[in-house]
């Protein structure tokens, strides 16, 4: 039997032992299901759910423009839903960013004790079930809900605002859900920002706006991009928030996929839609990585 005798060999063996279980776990529970989905997306649906093992690219055709001419005409409705989802997820990213960026600066300037309290408060929502929290938002946003009563009570509006079951309600809900995801990476990069850089910039003649654009923004950009990606990906495929706060009126790609798998029992089409979501996210990530490496290169080229 091979006996490790050098320290390096022993360390290698230990690493091997430690890394093997998670690797196998990931392979079985992540790669295999993903493979199943990829394969399913190229099959035909069975009559009562399940799949028929015949190759077909019509699932993608239905989405992208080459529908099965025997049964239906091409309908861009799925592309529309896809675009709606991208738009809602994008707006969610913007609104979480808008809330978290100043908050991150504010909290990072506090003393240790206060900082910890606020960081805890940011993560507090995780302690309550997501569905319960979203139903609380239903109570707040519905026409007879807290928000409308407060607004009409103060005489700011005459009739209750129609917020619930609109895009706005979905954005509010997703913003609420994803704020911690945006906050933590942003906070990490804001916390690291050296205050003396801001002073140095002012010392060299820059106004506050110039300092923000030339120093603060570039220095915190990794946090902004990181937070945006972490919010955008789950927001794009989210189906709980639109189904509770968007009702039947707002359909996001996540809801569509859920329907295909559960009500419509069209697994291949659902799988194809899932692949589309994954594809667009992957595309975004690759673009981001390319952007980062290009920035590195220009920094060196200058």
């Amino acid at each position, binding site marked *: 039997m091979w006996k490790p005798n050098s320290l390096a060999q022993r360390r290698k063996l230990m690493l091997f032992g430690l890394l093997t279980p998670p690797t196998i776990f990931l392979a079985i529970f992540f790669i295999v299901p993903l493979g199943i989905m990829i394969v399913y997306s190229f099959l035909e649906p069975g009559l009562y759910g399940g799949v028929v093992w015949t190759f077909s690219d019509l699932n993608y055709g239905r989405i992208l423009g080459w529908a099965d001419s025997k049964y239906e005409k091409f309908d861009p409705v799925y592309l529309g839903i896809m675009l709606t989802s991208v738009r809602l997820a994008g707006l969610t990213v913007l609104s979480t960013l808008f809330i978290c960026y100043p908050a991150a600066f504010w909290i990072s300037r506090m003393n240790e004790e206060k900082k910890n309290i606020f960081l805890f408060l940011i993560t507090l929502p995780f302690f309550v079930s997501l569905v319960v929290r979203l139903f609380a938002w239903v109570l707040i946003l519905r026409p007879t809900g807290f928000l409308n009563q407060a607004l009409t009570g103060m005489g700011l509006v005459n009739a209750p605002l129609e917020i619930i079951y609109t895009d706005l309600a979905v954005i509010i809900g997703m913003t609420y859900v994803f704020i911690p995801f945006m906050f933590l990476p942003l906070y990490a990069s804001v916390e690291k920002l*050296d205050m*003396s*850089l801001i*002073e*140095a*910039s*002012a*010392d*060299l*003649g*820059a*106004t506050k706006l*110039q300092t923000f654009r*030339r*120093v603060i923004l*570039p*220095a915190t950009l990794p946090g902004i991009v990181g937070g945006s990606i972490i919010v955008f990906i789950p927001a794009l495929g989210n189906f709980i928030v639109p189904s509770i706060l968007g009702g039947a009126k707002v359909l996001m790609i996540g809801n569509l996929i859920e329907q295909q798998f559960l009500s419509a029992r069209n697994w291949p089409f659902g799988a194809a839609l899932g692949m589309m979501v994954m594809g667009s996210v992957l595309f975004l990530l690759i673009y981001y990585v390319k952007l980062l490496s290009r920035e590195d290169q220009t*920094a*060196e*080229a*200058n």
Partner: protein
Amino acid sequence: MTDLLEIEHATKRFATPEGHHITALDDVSLSVGENEFLTLLGPSGCGKTTLLRAISGFEDLDSGMIRIDGNDVSEWPAHQRPVNTVFQKYALFPHLSVARNVAYSLEIARTPKQEIQTRVGEMLELVGLDGFGGRKITQLSGGQQQRVALARSLIARPKILLLDEPLSALDKNLRHKMQQELKSLQDEIGISFVFVTHDQEEALTMSDRIAVLAHGKIQQLGSPEDLYRRPSSIFVAEFLGGNNMFDGHVATCDAHDARLDLTLGQSVAVPKRNLTEGQAIKLLIRPEDVIINAPNVSGGLTFTGTVSETYFVGTDYQLVVNIPNADPMRVTTRIGFAQAPTIGADITLTVPTDAIHVIADKAA
């Protein structure tokens, strides 16, 4: 007035978290002339950094006035003041290359690209970083970062360069090298430097004038020689290097001379200056002014004692000599290897009259 920088009655108080008030600057007035190298020297917390930050515009004064080139800049925001700062930890922009860091203030001022390039090139050459323009800040050593910070502050051609302990992060050899480079650079470009440090040796080496600060007040302002040879207080004397101090009082005074009696029993005549009869004084004797085993003694003070410690520090020997009824005396002497004093040896210490400095003892 021809002074470039004038500070009048600058006062600044801070509130501590516990609710106390700290007076960081207490009625400080000073001025800096053209092409002068002024050092603010003092222990940490003496207010020297606060004063520097008040000049650069990062700290508002509670009262007082700062004039740069004749203009009252008290109300000017930091980015409008014609001064630039070299920060203690350099504060270089990590996301920009060396050249872009140096070019920063010119880019802000929308200088034409061509001119930026030329001036950045000149500046990098001046600080000895030719060809480093494309490097990342993180690829530079501490000394190189120091030079980038210097180049970045100088490129805007400020009237005054403020330096906040810029050498404290460097190791000793590099620090000495940078001290000399900074001084010759200042001569070369001919602008005024206001330099903050807590290192007395650094201050003595580089400055035209030194302001010693403590508790928010200027304790003494003068040339390095002045401060070292003629400190006005015990604090300044002790802050600027090693000392031997002896208590005494003024016994008699005539028109020119004053006779001082030491509590040890010796007495010595010194020029009168502003001494008055009966006044309590302290005698200050620098370790390097003591002559050991002088063959013929005339005038001055003489002590006898035994050597209790010796240290060889390369160029000199440092001795600690026990003197009966007094604190041990510190002596620095440059003697040959063969004459090296041994521990336990009896020794005669002589101090010439002109090496004796008298400080009025306010504490007594």
